[in-house]
């Protein structure tokens, strides 16, 4: 056995277990969560860690998701490292608190096990839940396999505690959450080296009383010492600036992680076979892994197809997308979400990124896999084939997306 092998601890974990291991290795101090399918095993695992004494944390079994994030928010206000996890309706129920946590600039980590929203009831996977929370001021990272789930949660704390923005680590329900894969679990010692204890910027102390999140007027206002302090709009500017600038931190943290653990994440998106590709498939999460299989099928037919997998959805890596799609003449975007009346959210982002760039690609959007509808590599390949004639017609854009379904 080599030295490297001695250090590996590969176990079969499903996505929920990988997320729980990630939270545990991050030494989270307060966990508040409410059960919802498919997140439930994640929170059960964490409560087991706490009850067994393997994780020294306060586990609060709250009475709803709104409270789960309210507990995390206030725990973070007194300087504790806080963690929660949810899916679909639970995330929707948290909506108000998502804004609050980001507005208060608290480095909370939320694992979102992606699931469809009702009505009608559906417990299976799509990404409508986290995409619907796009504008709440959270960084969103999408994992494509279970190793990435574990690694991303550990990195998320380092990112959040650097830029003071909460991070949502998203992964597909069932496809990842309930599917076992080999995962290399880093040692606690190594994680401790990578992620030091949280040093909060505020701890709420009677010796230095402060009143947080008071009513704040639109315009700057002077304090008792005559110093001009930010108005509401300046505070919002700073949040936008922090998320814009977080791209640098995400890359730096991913690089450091790679140096310590041998798995580098120094990117906001990943590319596969893009070097010579004039056709690009764009997707996010586990869907992008499925697209690799589709690309292989298409390459056998002689098409030069590559993959652009989005890792960060917020901040959206506009410049990186333009760079990655430089050679593309056709971009096929698959979305497991829909902005009703418009198109898939990632497609809109890609179009927005390419506007004004030198990339003159035909962009085609397909809505797939809603409510757990199985997405087969063959179907992705079919969608690409169907889009090929557009290369000849020169129609760059169509008004609405196509749906891979029976209507």
């Amino acid at each position, binding site marked *: 056995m080599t030295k490297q092998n001695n250090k590996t601890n590969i176990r079969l974990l499903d996505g929920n277990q990988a997320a729980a291991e990630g939270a545990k290795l991050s030494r989270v101090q307060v966990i508040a969560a409410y059960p919802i399918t498919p997140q439930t095993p994640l929170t059960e695992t964490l409560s087991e860690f706490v009850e067994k004494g393997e994780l020294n944390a306060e586990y609060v079994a709250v009475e709803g998701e709104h409270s789960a994030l309210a507990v995390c928010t*206030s725990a973070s206000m*007194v300087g504790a490292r806080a963690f929660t996890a949810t899916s679909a309706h639970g995330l929707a129920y948290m909506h108000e608190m998502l804004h609050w946590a980001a507005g208060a600039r608290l480095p909370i980590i939320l694992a979102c096990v992606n699931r469809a929203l009702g009505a009608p009831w559906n417990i299976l996977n799509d990404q409508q839940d986290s995409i619907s929370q796009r504008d709440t001021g959270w960084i969103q990272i999408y994992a494509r396999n279970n190793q990435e789930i574990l690694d991303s949660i550990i990195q998320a704390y380092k990112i959040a505690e650097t830029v003071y923005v909460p991070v949502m680590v998203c992964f597909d329900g069932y496809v990842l959450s309930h599917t076992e894969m080999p995962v290399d679990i880093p040692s606690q010692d190594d994680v401790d080296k990578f992620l030091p204890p949280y040093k909060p910027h505020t*701890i709420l102390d009677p010796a230095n009383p402060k009143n947080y999140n008071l009513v704040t007027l639109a315009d700057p206002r002077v304090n008792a010492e005559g110093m001009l302090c930010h108005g509401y709009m300046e505070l919002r500017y700073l949040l936008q600036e922090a998320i814009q600038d977080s791209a640098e931190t995400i890359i730096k943290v991913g690089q450091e992680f790679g140096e310590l653990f041998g798995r580098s994440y120094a990117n906001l998106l990943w590319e596969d076979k893009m070097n010579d590709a004039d056709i690009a498939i764009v997707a996010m999460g586990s869907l992008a892994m499925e697209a690799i299989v589709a690309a292989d099928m298409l390459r056998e037919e002689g098409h030069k197809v590559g993959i652009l997998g989005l890792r960060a959805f917020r901040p959206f890596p506009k410049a990186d997308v333009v760079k990655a799609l430089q050679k593309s003449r056709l971009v096929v975007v698959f979305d497991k979400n829909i902005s009703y009346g418009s198109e898939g959210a990632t497609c809109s982002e890609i179009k927005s990124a390419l506007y004004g760039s030198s990339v003159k690609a035909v962009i085609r959007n397909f809505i797939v896999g809603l409510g757990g509808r199985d997405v087969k590599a063959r179907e992705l390949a079919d969608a690409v084939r169907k889009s090929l004639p557009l290369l000849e017609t020169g129609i760059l854009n169509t008004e609405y997306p196509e749906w891979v379904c029976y209507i």
Partner: protein
Amino acid sequence: MKATAVNLTEVEYALPGNRTCPGCALSLAYRHILKALDGQVIVTVPASCLTVLHGMYPITSVNVPCVNTPFASTGASATGLVAGLKATGRKGLTVLAIAGDGGTHDIGIQSLSGAAERQEDFIYICYDNEGYMNTGNQRSGSTPPGAITGTTPILGKQHPPKDIAAIMEAHGLPYIATANASYPLDLYEKVRKAKDIKGTRFIHVFTPCPAGWQFPYSDTIKIGQLATETGLVVLYEVEDGVFRLTSASESIAQKGGNLKPVRDYLIEQGRFKNMTEEQINTLQDWVNARWKCYLERVTNLQP
């Protein structure tokens, strides 16, 4: 030591010059609550009149650490403060959640009930001005029958209020008390007592609102006293299941238990001007029946 106006600490935690309306009973109550906790407290507050009292960034009228939290989340926010303090090894601080009646009886009852069921270690104070006064006087689950509000503008409210103290008592809490801003020393002593008890402690504080209830702002104390003298607001505490009347309610019971007619209280306030004789009689019957129940439970009267 029994609290008197003379032996209260001179330290002020709720500073003068806050943004409440003239005659605000909340100001008075809050001042005594913070004194009782010696400032060794972290306060969480949802949207409410107290948010107004606390001021606008970057100036606040209190010198204790505070977090503001969304309307429905007070009980959960207090839970998070307790969990965070414990997880980071900080001891000796009281977590105080303080919310209005809308934030307690209505939108906040879920998170409060959840926290109480988990026996989270904090004091929860509901200051009750019987409506959504911060938004300009709309009916809440605590508005009394007959009261005209922004959302019961002509007929007045048709239903009796929730008995929030009884609801909280049903959670099996170690300490429940009712108080009235017009009896600040009774309130002070109850907060002092609650401070030394572990678990979820609940105090309901009656806080008359001159602007919303339509009475002269110089009459706040009088209105509060009338509420207790007529039996609409009964002052008591339940410690480990033992029920005691306190302060003015104890005195009334001691002196034969005769309450003033509720009409004496109603007539002083513009909000009750449309009440019919029938409504007044129904309210009187409701008060009498409740008072009888309290007298049956009482354990601390001299024979």
